[in-house]
């Protein structure tokens, strides 16, 4: 599904990613852990196509297609979804309008029929319920005045509605209380399927108790310095990153 080769990325003239190799097969869940500032969010932004993140070397293939040639919204329509570490507040655009516009734009881009208001409302309520997102929240401006945890649940709602084939979750667990963490993890797990891959960025082993990964990577100083199974996360929890040669970048 995703093949990253020797990826070097520069932001504002500063090299942040210094040769990443990463293969994520269909149906797999990969966790990426690593110290603050190691480049985890940078990697997620590069996948989503954010402006200002310049690929200076290497390649990213998504289902065999060169991602660099695709615009931000094209990537989304092709099935890439990023749950933001810091979701943006958009005053004046209600969450409901936003979700409907996004879903229908993707459907249109894929040549599918757009959903009318009634069918959309039914679908969004069905997806929102298990995430404890109520109608009142949906009617408010997108993320405006949402608590930290509400923002994260709204991100997962977007994912569940848009049904991407590759979901990148950037610290979706941070800021969640214990119950919300379970709710969100259940939401994510419900989406696991042989056709869908996930990259879960987190600082906490606790999340990985709920969303059990197939592979765990340690990203440090812009490189993947260690790759292992789910037990790697447990080791990291005990010993920290120092043992993996992870000095701060």
């Amino acid at each position, binding site marked *: 599904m995703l093949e990253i080769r020797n990826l070097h990325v520069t932001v504002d003239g500063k090299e942040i990613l210094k040769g990443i190799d990463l293969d994520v097969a269909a149906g797999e869940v990969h966790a990426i852990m690593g110290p603050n500032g190691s480049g985890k969010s940078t990697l997620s932004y590069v996948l*989503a*196509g*954010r*402006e200002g993140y310049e690929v200076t070397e290497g390649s990213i293939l998504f289902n065999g297609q060169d991602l660099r040639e695709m*615009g*931000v*919204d094209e*990537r*989304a*329509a092709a099935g890439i*979804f*990023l749950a*933001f570490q810091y*979701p*943006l507040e*958009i*005053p*004046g*655009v209600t969450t409901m*309008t*936003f979700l409907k*516009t*996004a*879903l229908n*734009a*993707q459907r249109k*881009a894929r040549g599918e029929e757009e959903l009318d208001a009634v069918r959309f409302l039914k679908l969004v309520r069905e997806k929102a319920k298990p995430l404890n997102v109520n109608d009142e929240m949906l009617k408010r*401006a997108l993320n405006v005045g949402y608590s930290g945890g509400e923002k994260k649940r709204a991100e997962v709602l*977007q994912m569940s509605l*848009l049904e991407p084939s590759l979901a990148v979750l950037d610290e979706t667990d941070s800021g969640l209380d214990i119950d919300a963490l379970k709710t969100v993890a259940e939401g994510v797990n419900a989406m696991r399927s042989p056709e869908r891959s996930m990259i879960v960025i987190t600082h906490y082993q606790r999340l990985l108790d709920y969303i059990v990964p197939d592979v765990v990577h340690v990203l440090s100083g812009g490189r993947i310095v260690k790759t292992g199974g789910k037990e790697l996360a447990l080791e990291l929890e005990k010993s920290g990153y120092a043992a993996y040669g992870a000095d701060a970048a």
Partner: protein
Amino acid sequence: MNEVMTEKAAQNFIDAYESARTVLPGADGWLARRRAAAIEAFAGAGLPHRRLEEWKYTDLRQTLDKAGFAPAPEHKGAVVLPETASASAFSALDRHVLVFVNGRYRADLSKAARLPKGVELRGLADVLTEQWAKDLLERRFDEARQAEQVVDLNTALMSDGMCLRIRKGVKLDKPVHLLFFAADDGASHTRNLVLLEEGAEGTILESHVGEAASFADIVTDVVLGNGARLDHVKLQDESANAVHLATLRGEVGAEARLSSFTLTLGCGVSRGQSFIRFAGEGAEAQVNGAYALRATQHADQFCVVDHAVPRCASNTVFKGVLDGQSEGVFQGKVIVRPDAQKTDGRQMTQALLLSRDAAMNAKPELEIYADDVQCAHGSTVGELSKDALFYLRSRGIPEAEARRLLVLAFLDDVIALAPHEEAREILRGLVSGWFEEASI
């Protein structure tokens, strides 16, 4: 040589007065003398130009000299409105409608029968013999006389207008819609008179449309008695070759409320000026607007609110979106007189630049002579947030659609200040449509 050129448009108006004065409404009475005095004063002052502080960013003299408008002809025949959303705006609402073509009232196209008792709604020529109309026409609205030149021109040449009087305690049953259609090129001069007596209530919707190279000069004088309430929603969407000059003068009585909103989409050059004066305590004025401009459009909003008495509240918000090489202007002033304690006066202007070549000039001012007041003013100019665009696009929303959503979001809170709920939705639709045109 320059001097001669700059007087051209003013001379055209003076000539137009000379040739029309015997046929203009009220030619045989007191108004003829008023008109003569007005044209004399106008001839002395000429058209406003940029050396005047209030006209710093809009050179009306130069604009009109260049355009060289002749008087618009009287249009008698059938009328075909353009097939635009603006031309049919408000038409789905239950309303009384007065149609003006080239500035003249067309009773045959209007529908304003069965008015409630206590409501009078007529063309200007029909009310000139009445004392209330005379009082309004002779009233001194803005003590600073900032609108004087423009109002003199209008007084001299006004050929028609809407006159609405609502008697004490009477509520207008449905909105009055004034549809101004510029069918042919040329200048028209319109005077609207609105008198709401004590406790009266009414809503006026106003739309200005047309594809002609027209110059609309409109003065609307409003007097609200104690406790009266006027809601006013105006849409201006005339052609890129048109010039629009609208002056609203309002006197607001004790506990009364004036709420006016203007959406500006059209015209090459437009200027909307409001002069509001509180005449009694506890009154409120809302003077707000939104605009969306492209190409070389220029729109100027000028607003003075005079807190002459205590305990009144005023709020002015203008927000605009500027694309192409368009130019927006906001000049505003809140005056708080020495006795006007407990004043709450606010002015805010915000612009969103969609292109590097667009520009905004903003100058909100406070002039405060009382100490126990709450006043604020501010102005911001910004661009669409790249982060917000990225966020929307990362969900699959194409860039043009993402921009449209963000622009609508930017204007949404000011449109929310428009007083009539259904009209508000219509304005939202028009702004949304404006953006679709832009992306073609």
